[in-house]
């Protein structure tokens, strides 16, 4: 399975629909402080099923919904979709007939999150299993958020051992 596309609508500062084509090799992302780069990283973890609002730099999960600026009001919902190319047919059986899988998560203020795969509503754990079968997921060691390096360096030895358990 390959991840090919990330779409955001109303997620944090990405209020307008944003279409990020994820191409092979090395893609750099640049821009000034506070422009939204780390918000992209959080969107990936979020659509993969991240349950902890603390991992989203939020005080509650609704905080990931665009909260408005000087010219625009806050939004009522946010959505992130991640497209998986399943040509190699490694997806869980229930999804494995498809060439392409679009996983989406949508949150509505005070109504929580809904997950869908190709438009069909599924449970959060189905999404977690799908990404686990793809050797990734919201807790993947390959998703290195800003400050993760400092956490590893400062961690006490028992906490660092858990980094290994992710690999086991």
């Amino acid at each position, binding site marked *: 399975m390959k991840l090919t596309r990330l779409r955001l609508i109303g997620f*944090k500062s990405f209020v307008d629909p944003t279409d990020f084509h994820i191409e092979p090799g090395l*893609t750099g*992302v640049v821009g000034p402080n506070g422009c939204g780069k780390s918000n992209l990283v959080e969107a990936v973890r979020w659509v993969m099923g991240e349950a902890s609002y603390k991992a989203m730099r939020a005080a509650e999960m609704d905080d990931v919904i665009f909260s408005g600026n000087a010219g625009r009001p806050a939004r009522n919902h946010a959505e992130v979709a991640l497209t998986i190319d399943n040509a190699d047919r490694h997806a869980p059986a229930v999804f494995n007939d498809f060439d392409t899988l679009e996983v989406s998560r949508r949150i509505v203020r005070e109504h929580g999150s809904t997950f869908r795969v190709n438009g069909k509503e599924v449970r959060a754990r189905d999404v977690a299993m799908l990404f686990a079968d793809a050797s990734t997921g919201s807790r993947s060691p390959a998703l290195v958020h800003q400050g993760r390096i400092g956490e590893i360096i400062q961690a006490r030895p028992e906490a660092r051992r858990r980094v290994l358990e992710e690999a086991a």
Partner: protein
Amino acid sequence: ARERLLTSFQTVNENFKKLFTELFGGGTAELQLIESEDPLEAGLEIMAKPPGKKPATLSLLSGGEQALTALALIFAVFLTNPAPICVLDEVDAPLDDYNVERFCDLLDEMARSTDTRFIIITHNPITMARMSRLYGVTMAEQGVSQLVSVDLEGAVKLREAS
């Protein structure tokens, strides 16, 4: 579970030793399980000897040396089961120019030897120059992010322009 942790410890340690020497252009390092006979209770210690220096635990290294060593650990775990996507958010911040170039060499090698697609968030012009393509995130309208394609030559001008 104990067996599985020990096996993965050995695999990660083998990767870690190679990656450390690659990232530092020399030197040696290794992972150690400490404080308990039982791997499920043990702590993970990191012993590192950068080129020309004495072996030391991670906490005694310089800031940049610690960051590069932590990267070797992260990639050592990654290579045991490469994810289809790897996102690195400003991991090059404390690195000097030579270490940034070796970090980018390792990224090139991993991009060649795995199917992983890499997304590298950076403020570092050397890293930017080594990418296959660049996207810029801008806030032309205050508080609203937009993703734009950036040509690699134009990067140096655009990258930090608010």
